[in-house]
């Protein structure tokens, strides 16, 4: 990325807006049960807030906020949270992804609700990390030249 054109207005606005986008992303993830939203949409918003910082500031600041070497491991971790929820259900005697067997609550419908929340968090984490990592990888060449 080109470091020279660091416009103060752009970077100031980006620093102000970025946390709000991130907050909204978290809201979309955690409020997915009650309103349109969910892991993928929220994860995209989180990724957007991180990418906004990378575009507006120097790549050094972006790296401080979210190092690009974290991208793939965090993405794997996100998918692993999803997979692990399914695997836990399998461990407690149900089929894969059968949240009714997770010992999270008494009522079966509440157990499923908790299961959905866990899964959505995994989705959000994975989507955020991987979108940022794809962005970084696509710009890799410019960083080096």
């Amino acid at each position, binding site marked *: 990325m080109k470091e020279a054109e660091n416009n103060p207005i752009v970077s100031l606005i980006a620093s102000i807006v970025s946390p709000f986008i991130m907050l909204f992303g978290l809201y979309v993830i955690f409020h997915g049960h009650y309103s349109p939203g969910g892991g993928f949409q929220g994860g995209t918003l989180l990724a957007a807030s991180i990418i906004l910082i990378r575009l507006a500031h120097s790549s050094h600041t972006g790296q401080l906020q979210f190092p690009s070497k974290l991208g*793939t*491991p965090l*993405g*794997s*971790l996100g*998918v*692993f949270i999803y*997979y692990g929820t399914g*695997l836990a259900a*399998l461990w407690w005697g*149900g*089929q*894969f*992804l*059968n*949240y*009714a067997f997770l010992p999270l609550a008494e009522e079966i419908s509440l157990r499923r609700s908790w299961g959905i929340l866990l899964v959505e968090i995994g989705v959000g984490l994975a989507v955020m990390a991987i979108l940022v990592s794809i962005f970084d990888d696509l710009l890799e060449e410019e960083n080096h030249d």
Partner: protein
Amino acid sequence: MLSNSPALPPLIYLLTGIFIPLAAWKWKKLSFWLALGATSVATLFSLFNLSQALSQGSISYRFGGWIPPIGIEYVLDPLSGFVTSVINFIALVVIIYAYRSVAQEIEEFRWTPFYALVMLFLSGANGIIMTGDFFNLYVFLEIASLSLYGLIAIGDKKSPVAAFRYLIMGTVAGGFYLLGVGFTYLVTGSLNMGDVHHILFNLSPSPPLIVAMTLMLIGLGIKMAVFPLHGWLPDAYTHAPSSVSAIMAPIGTKIGAYAIARIFFFIFGVKLITQVIPAAQVLSWLSAIGIVYGSIMAMAQNEIKRMLAYSSIAQVGYIGLGLGLVSPYGFIGALLHILNHGLMKACLFLVAGNLRHQLGHSRIDRLDDSIRRLMPWSSASFTLAALAMIGVPPTVGFFSKWYLALGTIETKNWLFLAVILISSLLNAVYFFRVIERMYFRRQKIAKAAKNNFVAQKMGKREVSLSLLLPTLILALALVVFGFLNTWIIKTILMKALPAGL
């Protein structure tokens, strides 16, 4: 735990694919051992699944505990059990080969993502075969195709272009399939394959359904590389790294062929694909043209990998031809050829990889009988696999062609019988061209001295054991399965026939 076994092969691969980037970031070598472990465990489970399916008939596995039209189900029956066992066995052998081959062809920091992608590809392939849901098939088709694009693109210099061409074709294929699923869903109101089968039985065929079948045939035909839709295949196979070619050639096209067999024969049913639209006839005619075209193009090639790629188009044609005959013998021949072509192509691509490994090239016009002396076991495996490809009796290649021929006689399609016979001759021509050079072409004296010098300098003549062993296992399997063919057909394939044949 064992009641979950139908879902386990794809899930094990998926877990390893997720886990490799987490665990093996620092220790690159670990990724290989994880992949090897996952493949062996998955192979064991798929063999167990096959035995379960043979003793208990069709088993349904419900994800999330929801009954089928509501949730997603996996269907384990003799057909899916057989095909998963075949591809997991081949994958196991090729993964052993990959250890040294990848170490030589790919930079070290790329090992971890490489093995992760191989695992994800196998997960996609297993998922396609086991699934009983139209949309789930699409998702796993995309996993398998995406990881293949990535794996192809780390080959030689032209590989990204080949991968991009495959990506465009593959995405069109996925899109057509998805559009076909959309029309089917709008007509029937269900996405579950078994449910759709029952509904279509009671529904008169309508234009959207016919177009849906056409779209699915085109989409899956691209994945299978049926004749006019094969454009992506030769470049992709030629420019990919050797271990990727060896894992893609046996598995990549077979999952398309399997999906066509599953969706058209088991879901839409024989009546719909022969009487309402001539899908089966079209498939068999295109495959017949593909057989002749692939064989002739293979004769014109000067690079072993490219020759094998064109030969793949011809061999996939045999599978399509067997399916399109709509007769029990044809279907058995096609299924046997899935096993058969998987073993043969994997073996041939491994030998091509061995040649590149030792000689640095695999061009036919530069081969001579020094190969026989340098690499006796590799050339013996190549000869055996080539004989199987031509269809010489004790090998398994003979029997699938035998059943295909019986199928053509049963349905009185003499032209297709002629195509099978002629293509065997053509196969003989292009393989003997290589074998003749390998065994009988005398090398020039000066060159011989130089070659010996090179061989001494390298300290070994044959490739190392970890490269040779998989080649030999596959070559041996060709003969063993040849002797076991009646057993395979009687115990497995007879139970895998669709209703109404």
